[in-house]
């Protein structure tokens, strides 16, 4: 950990652009956080030595000088995750955190975490995620953090390590933090009923608002200097912390874009003044838990805080190693054919998915509702990166991915066409939906892993 309390003397205010202005000044200052982190990470990837406190790292909060390095990040995309891990993908891509490994539950269980500096988990169905990871996954995660790893969790990723006696979740009691948005009785819901409450054992977890909320930083460590800022809340927790945790940000206010799912007074009581972001230590490692989605691509200051937290608290020294999968470099006709085959199927799938968006249908998977619009979020995440793979003279890909990626893409198109055909014939599609989203998730993992591997190759 690089952090130190208070700014070191060599860190003069003139290098610290946020000053005392707080509030929303960051963006108004014309600072492009993405370019800043991209620049640092590019230089680090090329072997440059940059220290905390150097002028070119001046947007990072005050800390003792120590060398920066590009972290190796594991992004969880296993069973139970929703589409929101793709927001982390955008953040990492834009900020040039390109050493990313996409993980499912089997990879976690098989010990891939030991090669990582950071583990990131976004939203989804917390219980399904916990169930998928199981006792082995919980053990591996706890060991990873305990040995100095950094856990960054938002929404479901924040719920997962909280204190719980509920089956599956009880293996993940990593921190002494409780959920505040829990009740013995389900509150009266104003709208979006199924997104507003979820049964949680004998209790109910309820989500008072969705969309944008205003948060206030406690100005500690990597959160210093930002004042208040915005982030979107999509079912993430409001937290009650014990003494061992540092509160990093609190829910401060609602905005015009806040969508109230329950009575405003209850929403205020549940959220305002309560903990939205927390930093907690476990062994030699650290967890950052964010109720709102700090990684959402429309919220640059919140994104900046994620990046700050990574640089602030990632493992002191690189463990090195690889994901354990043998990888090859494809170029020439073989590379062109693979990318063309993938492009063909992603195009086919996008075309069907756009048509599905007009259908009045939604699916329930676990305790989550999936609308047809979510299909295209996965496909677009791939589509917008295919151009880079087309232009790149070579790509780096694992043997397993090479074998499975094209059939997996064909399978997604096939399922989507079947779903469309069944909807046209007014037949049910609930039975196919879990397979569809599971296939989409796996395909997206394959494609994005290849994309990030190839970026590293180009770097």
């Amino acid at each position, binding site marked *: 950990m690089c952090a130190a309390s208070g700014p070191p003397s060599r860190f003069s205010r003139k290098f610290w652009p946020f000053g005392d202005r707080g509030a929303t000044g960051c963006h108004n200052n014309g600072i492009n956080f993405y370019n800043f982190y991209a620049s640092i990470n590019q230089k680090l990837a090329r072997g440059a030595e940059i220290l905390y406190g150097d002028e070119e790292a001046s947007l990072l909060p005050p800390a003792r000088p120590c060398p920066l390095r590009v972290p190796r990040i594991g992004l969880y995309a296993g069973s139970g995750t929703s589409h929101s891990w793709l927001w982390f993908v955008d953040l990492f891509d834009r900020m040039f955190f390109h050493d990313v490994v996409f993980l499912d539950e089997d990879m976690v269980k098989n010990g891939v975490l030991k090669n990582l500096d950071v583990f990131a988990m976004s939203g989804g169905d917390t219980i399904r995620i916990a169930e998928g990871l199981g006792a082995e996954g919980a053990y591996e995660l706890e060991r990873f953090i305990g040995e100095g790893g950094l856990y960054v969790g938002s929404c479901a990723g924040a719920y997962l390590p909280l204190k719980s006696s509920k089956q599956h979740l009880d293996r993940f009691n990593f921190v002494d933090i409780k959920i505040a948005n829990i009740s013995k009785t389900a509150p009266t819901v104003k709208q979006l009923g199924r997104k507003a409450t979820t049964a949680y054992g004998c209790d109910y977890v309820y989500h008072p608002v969705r969309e944008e909320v205003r948060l206030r930083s406690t100005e500690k460590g990597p959160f210093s200097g930002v004042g208040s800022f915005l982030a979107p809340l999509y079912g993430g927790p409001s937290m009650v912390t014990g003494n061992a945790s540092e509160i990093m940000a609190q829910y401060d206010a609602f905005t015009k874009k806040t969508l109230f799912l329950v009575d405003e007074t209850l929403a205020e009581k549940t959220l305002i003044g309560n903990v939205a972001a927390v930093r907690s230590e476990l062994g030699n490692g650290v967890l950052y838990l964010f109720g709102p989605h700090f990684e959402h691509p429309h919220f640059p200051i919140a994104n900046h805080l994620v990046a700050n937290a990574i640089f602030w608290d990632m493992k002191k020294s690189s463990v090195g190693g690889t994901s354990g999968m043998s990888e090859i470099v494809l170029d020439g006709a073989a590379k062109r054919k693979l990318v*063309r085959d993938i*492009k*063909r199927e992603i*195009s*086919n799938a*996008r*075309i*069907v998915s*756009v*048509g599905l968006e007009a259908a009045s249908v939604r699916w329930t998977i676990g305790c989550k509702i999936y609308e047809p619009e979510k299909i295209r979020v996965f496909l677009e995440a791939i589509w917008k990166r295919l151009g880079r793979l087309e232009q790149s003279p070579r790509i780096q890909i694992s043997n397993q991915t090479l074998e499975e990626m094209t059939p997996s893409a064909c399978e997604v*198109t096939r399922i*989507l*066409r079947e779903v*469309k*055909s069944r909807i*046209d014939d007014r037949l049910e599609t609930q039975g196919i939906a879990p397979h569809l989203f599971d296939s989409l998730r796996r395909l997206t993992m394959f494609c994005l892993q290849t994309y990030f591997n190839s970026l590293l190759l180009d770097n």
Partner: protein
Amino acid sequence: MDYLSSNKILIVNLESGEITEDELDDELVSHRIGGVGITSSLYETYKDKDPIVLGTGLLTGSLFPGSALGIISAKSAKTGEVAHSPLTLKAGMELKYTGFDYVVVLGKAVKPVFLWLHDGVADIQDASEIWGSDVWKASDHIRRSMGDDLIQTLVVGPAAESGSELAQVCINYWGSGDCWGFGKSFGEKNLKAIALRGMGLLEISEPEDFVDQCFELFEKIKKGSFMGKTGIQDIFSAMGENDATEWILPLVHRNSACYNTPYATNTFLYLSEDPKTLTEPDEPEPGFLVTDPCALLGFKRAGLSAKDAGSVMKACAKYGINPLAVAEFCVKSGEKDPENIEKSLKDLEGPVSVPDCGRFSYWAPGKPLFSNFDASDTSEYGAWWKRRQAVAYIFGIHPIFANMAPELSEELMLEMVNKGTGLELNQDILDKVIEDVCS
């Protein structure tokens, strides 16, 4: 070409299955502008291989009013010369967004195929299942199997498969402006259809100016002489065929415009249900979308009732045969019974008249509509019509709409293309291209 273009020319050899791509060279655009200027050029390049060339204008698929047009250029089964046919409805726009500006189809497939163009990808797909199907069933099959109702299809029917020179390339379920027998060319290549879908974007060199000017132009055009007019019934009036207007009106259910075209040039007739019905029809096929005013008028001249004329046009579209030619046979034979006409479709052969229209489809009425374009001498309409069609086919403007909107001047189209592409095309270049494609 970076702007108003996908920068790709696709070459598909159906015989070998080889698919290649060329860049659309700025130099070619600087000399031939686009649309029929370039499809003609590509036709010449590949003419020994009997090509079918598809293309779009630089304005096709943009916000410029009337920017609906795609083009098929090929050798006409009727005239033996290269000719051009319009792709309207949403087909021209969709072709532009497939990611290919031009498509050259060469050779004959070993077995029936359809070409699937989507997002910059071209696939030759097996069409065995739909070979022998009528146009409607083939279109349904393609849309259903590919999983999207918005796919635009250029489809041929049994007429093409049997080698009829009257065979037409239909658009989705409806007739098209193909009066050149291009359907036969598709059939000879074992090409049942070309399916189009793309979700790309067009880059514009000066986007804000271009879009603002398009909107201003729309406002200006909306005050034009066709204001308050709609559908084929009012086109008939503008052609001086007021009787035809009265004849068709009782069957009109709705009028429908092609992509971004301010005038609705297509009219849906209800043939088996009350056209005043606004709810969902009881029957799956209650009527027919008339896209060819001249053909409809032809059946009136043959003495058919409006309802029978609509029924025969529907049968023509399913069979994939040019209804204007069928109407001419009806006039000659005196046949007025729709069932007999439908039964005779497979046996129709022989020459049909081709008006003096150069290489452009005479599907577009032969004179200005709702405006005389400041021409005092109406005897000059022939030359005016050819030039006007050439301009529409070069830039990608709906050919019927081009004949009713004098606001869309050649100068304005050049200005907008230059604004959209960053090129510096001028009237001299345009004149040369027009002269070439009209010769």
